[in-house]
């Protein structure tokens, strides 16, 4: 039957496309022995009680490692560079857990940017001295000025006609430092 020949041709074309060039970006699970020793030592020093998962992310910009866990009812994501140096720690919180002052600053910043919006996810991002982050987040000690705090927010926002998802980074002064449009997951295989 002719139709079978057509599917054979489609199969050949698919095989060829598998080997075509793409922008490289990959995230995958890794085992503890595959991550830099320095990052593993830092994680072990935290004495975390809950299960921890390691991920590696490779892109044209380089490779990073990320440890994800739950600590004191908050999801934590701890990111390191290829040498095991701490890049930042992200702690997932509810909007209501932020101080009133920060809540207001975030609301003002987002209202200026979007006609309508809803907050889907907030993470407090801590960067700076590793020892200071450790003391602030995991030993509940007061931090020095060497710990920088920002708010990474996933927003469902409307600028023109359509809602879209955005990743917005806001500093403690309420200024938007970064805004990225998040391309929605290609769900064609869940729809057709």
């Amino acid at each position: 039957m002719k139709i079978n020949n057509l599917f054979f041709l489609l199969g050949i074309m698919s095989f060829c496309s598998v080997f075509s060039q793409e922008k490289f970006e990959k995230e995958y699970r890794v085992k503890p022995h595959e991550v830099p020793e320095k990052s593993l030592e830092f994680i072990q020093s935290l004495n975390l009680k809950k299960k921890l998962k390691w991920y590696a992310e490779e892109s044209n910009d380089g490779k990073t490692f990320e440890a994800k866990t739950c600590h004191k009812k908050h999801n934590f994501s701890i990111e390191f560079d290829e040498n095991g140096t701490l890049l930042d720690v992200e702690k997932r919180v509810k909007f209501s857990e932020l101080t009133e002052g920060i809540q207001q600053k975030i609301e003002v910043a987002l209202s200026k940017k979007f006609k309508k919006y809803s907050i889907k996810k907030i993470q407090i991002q801590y960067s700076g001295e590793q020892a200071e982050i450790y003391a602030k987040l995991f030993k509940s000690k007061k931090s020095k000025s060497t710990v920088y705090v920002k708010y990474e927010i996933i927003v469902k926002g409307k600028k023109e006609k359509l809602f879209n998802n955005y990743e917005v980074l806001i500093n403690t002064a309420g200024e938007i430092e970064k805004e990225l449009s998040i391309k929605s997951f290609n769900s064609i295989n869940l729809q057709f």
Partner: protein
Amino acid sequence: MVLMSAFLFCFVKMFSQSDAFLGFLPKGVVSKKINATSKWVNSLESRTVVRDNEYLFSQSLVDISSIYSTKTFENQSFNFGYILRFRNFETIHRTFQHYNFVNNYSSLNVGHRFAFEQFYQTNKKTTYRTRYRVSAVKPLNGERVDVKELYFKLGNEYLYDFKDADLEVRVTPYIGYQATKYDKIEFGIDYRISNFINNSSENQFWFRTTWYISLD
């Protein structure tokens, strides 16, 4: 877990029947973005029966479909489509309407599809069918499906034919491969059990492969 149990139940039940259908279902789906909120999706599907009561290796049918899909919200869409089916010496026309919504969780994407279908055939009354499908995609490594990565997809669909008052249930476990940013291919089993209500169940066991191509 519930879906896996349902699949195992159906699998065991199928092999206890001697009249099970076996066959291949290759399908190609090509989508093209029209504007920010809509796209045009075309597909070609063939059905080859490997074994049934009478035949061995026979072309059963060919479906050609064309769908207009429009987004209403960021994760919701309506589809309006037409399928032309060639089966033996007859031609069946079908129109359908879908409502979809997709939820994204940390490493799981779950899609729901509600459908209503109308079947038209010369010298026959128009018949109607409704269906609901839930499917989930989970990457086999990491939290998202990247290019050149495998994923697992599990679907469960319920179809009700108003004319025959028949319920059909489908369970579809697939392994998918995101070949490039624009195309992915899936292989798996499409298990169907029908005539539930009449208590004379029929089993169909298809090997399905679907190639999704995006021309965006």
